[in-house]
């Protein structure tokens, strides 16, 4: 149709200016998407947490242990279905720079608590029956080229000594935000070694992971658990897994906030650039719009033409960004897996790109479109003729 062709030709009348605007929008939206993806990665632990899981730890601090004997009493609290003891193991493979998270857990209950860690039944059985076995995430296996049957020795930091273990299973995440870079070993393996080497540290654990049937009772159950141990030598603090994870994240809250702000500032800047492009287009072609109005085209139609032109540019930029962003994050994932175990562009971020494309296009064209739509014909001709 002729009108669409006119809009298209007008949008690319100044080819360089249009291209720079499109590239600008694309870069800004890509940067925005990247920052959001980094934030998502940071918050992945929080979003992956389940409302049906609680964590009980020492009320004084995370580094203080709890008596393992608490397990049985917690299990008896009404509403508690599963209890699994766990420790941050803190083992190192060869060198500090090979860092990855590793936990000692009560494996059987732990797997019931974390159904999102998917293991074949055969591998699971192999892991459960080998006290010196370990289960590792798929990405961790890829990183060190480890396979089922390999023996890996970790150097203990919190639990001194050399810790040989055999990889018995490799888990996959059932959800995109499941962390696939963790190693789990048996809590009992650690405890038995402690009994022999440092008996005063045996029978203790870092935290308990708790499964509850009714997520709406989380607050009540937490209170009941903590009440059990009030005035004992190790008081407890029980909170939802989400709150627990957020405790880790919150120390860097200022940084997260800064990244969030910057990501929107970038959008604001590109909005100003696009608005400038549209204002220039409108000003330069005011005479042409006056001609169209003279011929009988209604003012609103002219305004919509300019709006369509603006959207054509901004959405071209958004389309470009939607291609760029996944390509860039892919490259990131390959190089930064150890810092951001979960690094992928969320659906929401992907949808925000065209949404902001529309917003930038509309806002950039708003004032110029009104100007064009309400142009006074005789006055416009006086300016050009």
């Amino acid at each position: 149709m002729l009108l669409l062709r006119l809009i298209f030709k007008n949008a690319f009348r100044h080819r360089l200016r249009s291209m720079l605007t499109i590239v600008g929008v694309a870069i800004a939206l890509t940067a925005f998407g990247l920052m959001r993806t980094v934030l998502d990665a940071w918050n992945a632990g929080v979003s992956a947490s389940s409302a049906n899981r609680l964590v009980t730890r020492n009320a004084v601090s995370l580094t203080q242990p709890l008596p393992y004997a608490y397990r049985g009493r917690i299990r008896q609290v009404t509403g508690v279905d599963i209890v699994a003891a766990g420790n941050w193991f803190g083992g190192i493979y060869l060198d500090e720079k090979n860092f990855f998270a590793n936990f000692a857990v009560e494996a059987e209950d732990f797997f019931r608590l974390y159904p999102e860690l998917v293991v074949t039944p055969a591998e699971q059985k192999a892991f459960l029956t080998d006290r010196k076995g370990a289960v590792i995430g798929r990405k961790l296996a890829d990183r060190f080229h480890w396979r089922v049957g390999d023996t890996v020795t970790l150097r203990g930091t919190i639990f001194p000594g050399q810790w040989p273990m055999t990889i018995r299973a490799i888990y996959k995440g059932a959800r995109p935000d499941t962390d696939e870079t963790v190693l789990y070993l048996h809590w009992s393996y650690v405890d038995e070694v402690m009994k022999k080497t440092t008996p005063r540290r045996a029978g203790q654990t870092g935290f308990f992971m708790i499964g509850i049937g009714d997520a709406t009772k989380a607050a009540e159950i937490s209170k009941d658990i903590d009440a059990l141990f009030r005035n004992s030598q190790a008081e407890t603090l029980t909170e939802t897994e989400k709150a627990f994870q957020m405790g880790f994240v919150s120390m860097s809250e200022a940084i997260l906030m800064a990244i969030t702000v910057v990501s929107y500032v970038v959008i604001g800047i590109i909005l100003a650039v696009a608005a400038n492009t549209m204002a220039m287009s409108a000003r330069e072609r005011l005479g042409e719009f006056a001609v169209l109005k003279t011929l009988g085209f209604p003012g609103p139609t002219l305004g919509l033409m300019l709006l369509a032109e603006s959207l054509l540019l901004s959405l071209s930029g958004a389309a470009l960004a939607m291609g760029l962003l996944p390509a860039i994050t892919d490259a990131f994932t390959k190089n930064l897996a150890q810092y951001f175990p979960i690094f992928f562009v969320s659906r929401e971020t992907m949808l925000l790109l065209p949404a902001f494309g529309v917003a930038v296009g509309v806002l950039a064209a708003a004032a110029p479109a009104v100007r064009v739509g309400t142009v006074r014909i005789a006055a416009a001709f006086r300016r050009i003729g």
Partner: protein
Amino acid sequence: MTQQPLIEIAHLSKSYRRGDQVIPVLSDITFDIATGEFLALIGPSGSGKSTLLNCIAGIDAVDAGTITIGGTDITTLSEGELAAWRSRHVGFVFQFYNLIPVLTALENVELPLLLTSLSARARQEHALAALTAVGLPDRTDHKPAQLSGGQQQRVAIARAIVTDPDIIVADEPTGDLDRHSAADIMALLRRLNQELNKTIVMVTHDHRAAEAAHLVRELDKGELRVAP
């Protein structure tokens, strides 16, 4: 010739305001334009010729008075109604052609037909017929920049007649042309007047151009008189 006038202008006044100053441009102008007339408006620069023409064509507002065209007082129409009225009744020819530079000659001529209910195919046939009528059937795919001034003005005239309006208004249509092209354009306008019976109102300060018209009226100091 006792024909019913097509355009009746009564007690038309208009002034511009510049700061506190009021600049009267047209004061109490009354005259008729007959159907099929070819009227030239002449007068010194700044005398209000363009302003009067714009008011008649419905692209500028009056302060007082009425302009009745084909029975409709266009000074009472809303902006939207006026736009629709213009697209049906008036064809425009400007001094600087005012073609859309990114469109071809044929597309420029087709443009006003977008406001009609014609099919795309019918629009193109009409546009081609109009270009043929102005003698440019072989320039359909040229952009304005690839045409001479005279040719661009022909395309503009084709655009003005493609909707088959009753009235053609032209503001200095030869003002930007060499003498030869100007003569061609005047001959073309006269042919439209004689063969298609278009009523033409033309502003010019070119006496040679004015000679092509039936009737010449001179505007001076806001008042109108029939020129000698």
